[in-house]
């Protein structure tokens, strides 16, 4: 059966998006991309440090993989828009992950500024994937603003705590017509699997792989778990009967009164 993820007008086979931050050595990135099967990779844009002689991260990313630059560092919509335009000018396509964080304590995204930035960038032809708290009203506004997907957090970024916001993400999956991609907080392959079983369109993760003892092996584990979760979702989960016939029936009266 065909089961492809469509974002903007791009058809993807893989439902695992991965980040490129926090690796002990960027040289392992190609191997991680290969083992994860990811076709979408996030990168960040930073001011050049002229003293830093390290290799450019793009050199480790195969050309057939789609880059998803993020706007990390942006504290408001204007800064996010500025970063997005710079990222596009760098010649890496028109996808952008909007990440507006004005809270340095929990690193939670700013919904209002994210909506503003999405509106501006979608009009300029960007394929906008905003990172949000799983808030239905924010997500609905993003649909109207022209987002290509919404990316709710499972738990605060970098915490590896799993799907703490499960109930709220489920509401987004049920109510939002765009792909819902769970971003941030996923710590274990079982978390990613659970998100996919719930009907998430994809998972984006970084820290869980980068901070593993063996990141390459963990990338492979996530690849399997995302596929397993997706298949379970498509197969339709079974359920356990909870409403057996009660001793005091509620419908018994139907036999004792005239029928209409």
């Amino acid at each position, binding site marked *: 059966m065909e089961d492809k993820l469509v974002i903007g007008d791009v058809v993807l086979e893989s439902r695992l998006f991965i980040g490129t931050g926090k690796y002990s050595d960027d040289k392992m990135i190609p191997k991680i991309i290969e083992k994860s099967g990811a076709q979408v990779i996030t990168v960040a*844009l930073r001011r050049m440090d002229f003293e830093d002689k390290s290799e450019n991260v793009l050199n480790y990313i195969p050309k057939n993989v789609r880059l998803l630059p993020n706007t*990390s560092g942006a504290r408001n919509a204007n800064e996010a828009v500025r970063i997005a335009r710079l990222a596009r000018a760098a010649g890496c396509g028109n996808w952008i992950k909007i990440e507006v964080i004005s809270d340095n304590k929990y690193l939670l995204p700013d919904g209002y500024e994210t909506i503003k930035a999405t509106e501006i960038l979608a009009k300029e032809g960007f394929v906008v994937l905003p990172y949000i708290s799983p808030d239905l009203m924010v997500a609905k506004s993003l649909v109207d603003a022209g987002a290509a997907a919404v990316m709710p957090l499972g738990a605060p970024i970098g915490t590896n705590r799993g799907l703490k916001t499960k109930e709220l993400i489920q509401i987004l999956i049920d109510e939002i017509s765009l792909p819902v991609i769970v971003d941030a907080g996923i710590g274990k392959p079982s978390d990613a699997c659970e998100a996919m079983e719930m009907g998430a369109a994809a998972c984006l993760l970084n820290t869980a792989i980068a901070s593993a003892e063996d990141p390459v092996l963990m990338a492979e584990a996530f690849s399997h778990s995302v596929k397993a979760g997706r298949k379970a979702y498509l197969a339709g989960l079974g359920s356990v009967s909870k409403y057996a016939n009660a001793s005091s029936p509620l419908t018994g009266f139907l036999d004792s009164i005239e029928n209409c």
Partner: protein
Amino acid sequence: MKIILNGKKENVQENITLMDLILSKNLNPDTIVVEYNLNIVKKEEWSNTFLKENDSIEVLRFVGGG
């Protein structure tokens, strides 16, 4: 003359272009993006862009991120 490069004051020769500046820093033009006085300047225009006193230039590149 003085310019501001990535937030720091820097002394450069008169009449140099953006391209001259980038090459003088040993940067690969294909992996960076340049903002000149808050406007994005395409690579093709770097050679025609002559720097002036007090210009502000930001050179950015991609790094790992999530």
